[in-house]
């Protein structure tokens, strides 16, 4: 729920004097706590200019932009607003944003047909639809003004929320035109601006969502507070697929503040006056679990299963030239690269607040998949979809975990047992042990070298088909287009090129999207193999890549620039190396160099990271930089530490002490250079994640000669005296 409020002085001052020369005063309205008696999800258009689902302008000129994509840190609220406001010629100082309600008809992501935020495609998918929406609204405002003045619309101009008629010197603000514009007929096919006329797109505009994030005012799902609300802590069955057996709640019910124990099929919840009571109550419960058929499963079995599956032929995703014949000639190379299960561990632990009434269900949460949450909650509540209200919030990180509705479904089932609102909070231990995990992958590459170049390239990906579960129509002919995304889209000029995919679902372990998605495994395997092939060919890793990028000028340009900026080729001390990564992911062209030192016991010190990014038109160049910086750290964290292991059907990691995150003291200097480009925008929120692991691995290869083929990095292989 979003209502008016006054900006705190620190935010106002900071924004007025911030780094952007424009000096815009931003009035941003974050969701305030929904009061119980306040109507929610009303998109009142009375008395407003509401030309489409995205734009609302009232008589005061207040301009509300509805956000079809969710803000989870990637800066999309500011980028989407800039795109809309650019074509609308809005007064940026009057722009406010609102979370869009669940509605696939109005707000479905054009790529997915669902109201989903993922795959780094918010700007890519909405670029033209939102420009058209803005330009259409602008044309209607201009028509309204021209009508009032009795002049031709073509003789009027719009800028900063005003329409002007230069010949007569007349001006009208968008607020004054709102009512008249509402009755204008929208033009059928309106022209969008020439990029050279952009005034907002391409500027490092200050983010709209951050002022309230410095003073505790920003509200995430976990911050929902409702009258009479109680808090629930939960225990999921520790074994995947297991069920609740017997529950003895006698001790738990004696804990002060505990109100109720709810026993579901596979979850037990303790509801209390506060989280502390709920947690103490949960600890006091005696639960016997029916562990089920997965109680014997371990990571070792899962890897054996995957290696066996990977030995089979897969479905052919792409094949050009004659792979069998080409592989039979030249200098042969074969390698398999393996990636572990990973948890998302967003800083905001999983949570959902639900109030189930006899004829309605209301939800407060932060989700990447609004309409699916609504429909799954409706099923769990036994109500029609239109009786389920979803109040979207800012997300304290998403990273793909919040593309799943499971936490909301469980919360609805718990809330059905009581007549008051319940906020269900997962402890960090539940969050890590009951995630939907980045799957294990085994990527096998066979190649041959002729005259120092790759003459044949056969790449087989084996792993879970997340799309087959998550978006079944997208899974066709046995191929998961996510798992092989950056495998088929290789940046290099390989004459004989062949990609296969083997679907291999890990027993028991649920798998899902994890920031960087399919390209994480592809870019890692491709770039590791390219480094090994370069060494085999006796060539410098960058020169070797460049020799096969002659038809890819954008990639060649970023690679050349990163070589220069990173000091590539300059001498380094012993056991210090530089590694490069080139990636074509999310329609962005990125080259990265990591410089790292490996000490005598194999511990790694990151010294420096340089990335050069051509993402086409950068809607907000500072956001592009921030996403690459953060994405690099997210990916490097996984390379250094990330692994979820299973024993006896249970996840062995539980919190940040054994599922480690990079910290500030481990963070190197990171330089990100954003190339000016007039091409269509690419995706950026996940791209940095792809780059870190292979570039670091290749730096280690350069420093030690050890060709690591698994993540996370095994320090034991890197101690002095070890040789792969």
């Amino acid at each position, binding site marked *: 729920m979003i209502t008016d409020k006054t900006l705190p002085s620190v935010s106002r001052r*900071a924004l007025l004097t911030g780094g952007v020369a424009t000096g815009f005063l931003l009035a941003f309205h974050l969701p305030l706590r929904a009061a119980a008696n306040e109507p929610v999800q009303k998109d009142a258009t009375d008395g407003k200019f509401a030309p489409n689902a995205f734009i609302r302008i009232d008589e005061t000129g207040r301009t509300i932009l509805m956000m079809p994509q969710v803000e989870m840190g990637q800066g999309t609220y500011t980028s989407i607003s800039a795109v809309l406001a650019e074509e609308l010629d809005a007064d940026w100082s009057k722009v406010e944003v609102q979370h869009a309600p669940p509605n696939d008809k109005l707000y479905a992501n054009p790529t997915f047909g669902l109201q989903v935020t993922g795959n780094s495609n918010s700007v890519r998918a909405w670029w033209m639809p939102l420009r058209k929406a803005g330009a259409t609204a602008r044309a209607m405002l201009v028509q309204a003004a021209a009508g009032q003045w009795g002049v031709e619309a073509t003789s009027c101009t719009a800028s900063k929320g005003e329409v002007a008629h230069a010949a007569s010197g007349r001006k009208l603000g968008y607020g004054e035109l709102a009512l008249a514009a509402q009755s204008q007929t929208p033009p059928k096919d309106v022209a969008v601006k020439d990029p050279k006329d952009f005034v907002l797109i391409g500027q490092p505009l200050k983010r709209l969502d951050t002022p309230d994030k410095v003073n505790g005012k920003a509200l995430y799902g976990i911050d929902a507070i409702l009258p009479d609300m109680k808090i629930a802590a939960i225990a999921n069955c520790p074994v995947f697929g297991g069920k609740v057996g017997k529950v003895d709640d006698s001790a738990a019910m004696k804990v002060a503040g505990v109100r109720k124990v709810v026993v579901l099929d596979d979850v037990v919840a303790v509801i209390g006056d506060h*989280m502390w009571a709920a947690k103490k109550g949960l600890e006091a419960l005696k639960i016997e679990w029916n562990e089920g058929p997965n109680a014997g499963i371990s990571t070792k079995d899962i890897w054996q299963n995957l290696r066996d599956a990977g030995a089979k032929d897969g479905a052919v995703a792409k094949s050009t030239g004659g792979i069998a014949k080409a592989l039979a000639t030249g200098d042969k190379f074969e390698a398999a690269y393996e990636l572990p299960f990973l948890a998302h561990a967003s800083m905001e632990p999983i949570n959902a607040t639900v109030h189930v009434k006899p004829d309605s269900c209301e939800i407060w949460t932060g989700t990447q998949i609004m309409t699916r949450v609504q429909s799954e909650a409706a099923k769990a509540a036994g109500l029609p979809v239109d009786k389920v209200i979803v109040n979207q919030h800012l*997300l304290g990180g998403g990273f793909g975990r919040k593309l799943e509705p499971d936490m909301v479904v469980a919360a609805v089932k718990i809330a059905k047992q009581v007549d008051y609102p319940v906020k269900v909070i997962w402890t960090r231990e539940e969050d890590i042990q009951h995630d939907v995990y980045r799957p294990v992958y085994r990527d096998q590459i066979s190649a041959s070298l002729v005259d120092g170049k790759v003459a044949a390239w056969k790449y087989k990906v084996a792993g879970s088909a997340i799309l087959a579960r998550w978006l079944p129509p997208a899974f066709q002919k046995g191929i998961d287009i996510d798992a092989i995304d950056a495998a088929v889209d290789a940046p290099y000029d390989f004459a004989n090129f062949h990609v296969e995919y083997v679907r291999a679902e890990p027993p028991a372990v649920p798998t899902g999207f994890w920031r960087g998605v399919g390209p994480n495994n592809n870019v890692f395997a491709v770039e590791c193999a390219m480094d090994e092939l370069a060494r085999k060919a006796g060539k410098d890793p960058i020169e070797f890549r460049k020799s096969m990028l002659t038809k890819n000028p954008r990639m060649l340009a970023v690679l050349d620039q990163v070589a220069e900026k990173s000091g590539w080729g300059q001498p380094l001390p012993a056991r210090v190396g530089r590694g490069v990564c080139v990636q074509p992911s999310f329609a962005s062209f990125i080259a990265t160099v990591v410089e790292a030192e490996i000490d005598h016991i194999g511990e790694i010190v990151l010294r420096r990271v340089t990335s050069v990014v051509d993402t086409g038109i950068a809607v907000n160049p500072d956001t592009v930089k*921030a996403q690459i*910086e953060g994405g690099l750290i997210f990916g490097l964290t996984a390379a250094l530490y990330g692994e979820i292991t299973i024993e006896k059907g249970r996840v062995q990691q539980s919190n940040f002490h054994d599922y480690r995150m990079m910290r500030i*003291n481990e963070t190197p200097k990171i330089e990100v250079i954003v190339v000016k480009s007039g091409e269509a925008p690419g995706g950026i929120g996940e791209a940095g994640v792809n780059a870190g692991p292979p570039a670091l691995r290749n730096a280690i290869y350069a420093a030690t000669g050890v060709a690591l083929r698994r993540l996370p990095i095994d320090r034991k292989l890197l101690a002095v005296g070890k040789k792969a």
Partner: protein
Amino acid sequence: MATTLTINGETKSFDAPPEMPLLWVLRDILGMTGTKFGCGIAQCGACTVHVDGKAVRSCVLPVSAVANRAVTTIEHVGSTPSGAKVQKAWLDAEVIQCGYCQSGQIMSAAALLAATPNPDDADIDAAMAGNICRCGTYVRIREAIKLAASGRQS
């Protein structure tokens, strides 16, 4: 059990078990949700508050331990000189992404600057290594702390 605390200069009285962590008192009893739950075991720093000006992890701090001591939270840190400088630097350097950890980051940084007005990289590492940011804003956190310390802010 009735407990009285001084939070952000105001006296607050409430019933809570003495061993209840300050984090849950703030969030679930007093409705002050700026202080965040991240791990519950003092590993991530999202719950950082000031007690007598020092940064502490409220998720493992029994409420009984802070009776008669001054607690400051993110909602009020802007009224301290170092807190205001840090908040402004965070916006100037556009540090924040999802923002969930940033209450804790800002509390740690404000305590650092109050004690060490011109921190070097080692001081920053020592003060900030207890705060995890999953979005990876560390480069800008370092830059913002230096900006806040420099007095170069507009």
